[in-house]
């Protein structure tokens, strides 16, 4: 008796699982890639699914490199990448710019530096200037905090600020925007960089070439440190995927992105 009951319950569970599967395989769009854009994509997907009940959108992270790879291999319908320049292997993909993201250089609030010229920033991050007093600050060693190799933020920053040169060997590494902020907030001599949307009052964002790092300035093209967020698709775009991309580009979705701290493309 007990066994039969257990068997029935087990069967029911199996049925539920298979039901769940059949429903999700109905119309699923998978997005993968950039961890910086992932939370925004999740938010947009949620809004979209509330209106389009038959569509399921699956948002995965993994980083920009994973976004490119999974778009090429087809394991994701849309690959998300926030790189300044797409690598060679992404040439076969079709990029759609869905948003822009500014990068702010941050220091501790105790640091009296307000502005960095492009040259000074280059020299700090390449290790040519190693003391704050060379920039008119206190007499203390500059602690450079960077991101790990492969990060989209890092690649864009290196391209725009370091140009062809190498990051200083004494740099510390943190593996997310949040931990960079933490490291800079707790060390009065540190300098780092992260997405403008994630700057808060525990760190101080310094002006770059005299222009304050704000979303308005990025939009007005006066603040140069910004990178596009791409949706990468391969070959013919399926109608339901196109519908989602259209939604992301719509005024409503772009407004949501702007409210969350990104920069709209319009």
């Amino acid at each position, binding site marked *: 008796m007990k066994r039969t009951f257990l068997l029935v319950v087990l069967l029911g569970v199996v049925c539920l699982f298979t039901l769940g599967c059949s429903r999700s395989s109905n119309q699923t769009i998978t997005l993968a890639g950039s*961890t910086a854009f992932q939370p925004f994509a999740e938010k947009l997907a949620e809004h979209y699914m509330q209106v389009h009940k038959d569509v399921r959108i699956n948002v995965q*992270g*993994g*980083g*920009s*490199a*994973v976004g*490119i*790879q999974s778009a090429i291999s087809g394991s994701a319908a849309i690959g998300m990448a926030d790189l300044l320049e797409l690598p060679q292997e992404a040439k076969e993909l079709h990029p759609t710019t869905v948003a822009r993201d500014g990068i702010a250089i941050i220091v501790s609030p105790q640091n009296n530096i307000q502005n960095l010229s492009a040259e000074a920033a280059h020299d700090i991050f390449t290790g040519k200037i190693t003391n704050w007093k060379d920039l008119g600050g206190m007499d203390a060693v500059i*602690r450079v905090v960077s991101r*790990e*190799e*492969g*990060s989209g933020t890092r*690649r864009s920053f290196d391209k725009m600020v370091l140009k062809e040169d*190498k990051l200083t*060997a*004494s*740099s*510390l*590494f*943190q*593996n997310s925007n949040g*931990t960079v902020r*933490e*490291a800079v907030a*707790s*060390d009065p001599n*540190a300098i780092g960089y992260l997405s403008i949307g994630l700057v808060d009052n525990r760190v101080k964002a310094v002006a770059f070439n005299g222009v304050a790092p704000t979303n308005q300035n990025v939009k007005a093209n006066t603040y140069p440190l910004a990178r596009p967020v791409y949706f990468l698709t391969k070959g013919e775009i399926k109608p339901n995927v196109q519908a989602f991309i259209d939604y992301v580009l719509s005024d409503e979705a772009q407004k949501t992105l702007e409210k969350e701290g990104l920069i709209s493309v319009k």
Partner: protein
Amino acid sequence: MRAKRSKLLREIPRFTRNRLRNPPNSIVRGRLPRAFGARNDTQLMDRLISKLLFFAACSSTAILALIALFIFKEGVPIMAKSGLFHFLLGREWSPLQGQFGIFPFIIGSLWITFGALILGVPLGVSCAVYLAEFAPKKWVNVLKPAIELLAGIPSVVYGFMGVMWLAPIIRTHLGGPGLSILAASCVLAIMTLPTIVGVSIDAIQAVPKSFKEGSLALGATEWQTTWRVLLPAARSGILAGVILGMGRAVGETMAVIMISGNATAIPTSVLDSVRTLTANIAIEMGYAVGAHREALFATGVVLFFFIMILNIVALKVSKRKF
């Protein structure tokens, strides 16, 4: 006679005893076909269970073999391509430019591990000596579980403590970035304590009582007995505990990522920031594709050898008698 027989029976566990008194029908009649050459059902059951246990034992070894196979398959090609020497002794790690030198990380792992041992071993062994030899019973009952509890604290909590509390202290009082070898070693020393203390206590308690009694009878003081007799006698066990603790320190990842700063340069002082082998894998895994990913697997291969060597040494040492 009968009394003697029942006395004999009492020595046998109850289950077997009952079986002997009232053998089940199947054994008496022996009707069912049997596998594994078993004479009867009981024996069949025994053999079946022993076979099952054999498979269970094999499966864990098989998993180890599979993991090793997979890591090697993914990691060895890149080692061969960039040259084993170049890979192990190369000083530059910039995977996007095709530079895969993990020498700074090997040095980083060694620095942090030995730092942890230098801080942790004296503390752990003296703690073990006190708990095994000198502590009153009620203190042992409090201290021993408390030390064991240390092992249960998730490493991310240790890391968080290190970042929020230890690193700023080191930065303001000793200089440097704070996130450093010293900070990581301090935290790892605490994390290895449970292993070192636990194994050392067992080793000290395993020394025959006669050693201690003999020494005391010859007029040695308690301290002389501990230092000259107990510790040398328990040496191999304590060493095994230290090496196991070392394995834990080498393999620790989360806490180390948070408090070592992860710089890729070779450190010149204990206040410098370093990256360990484990941290290198964990930090870059999210973005790694192609050769970069293979290089991370190759880092795993090196780590695998590190841990294997440590464990084999620990096994050999703990088997050695004095």
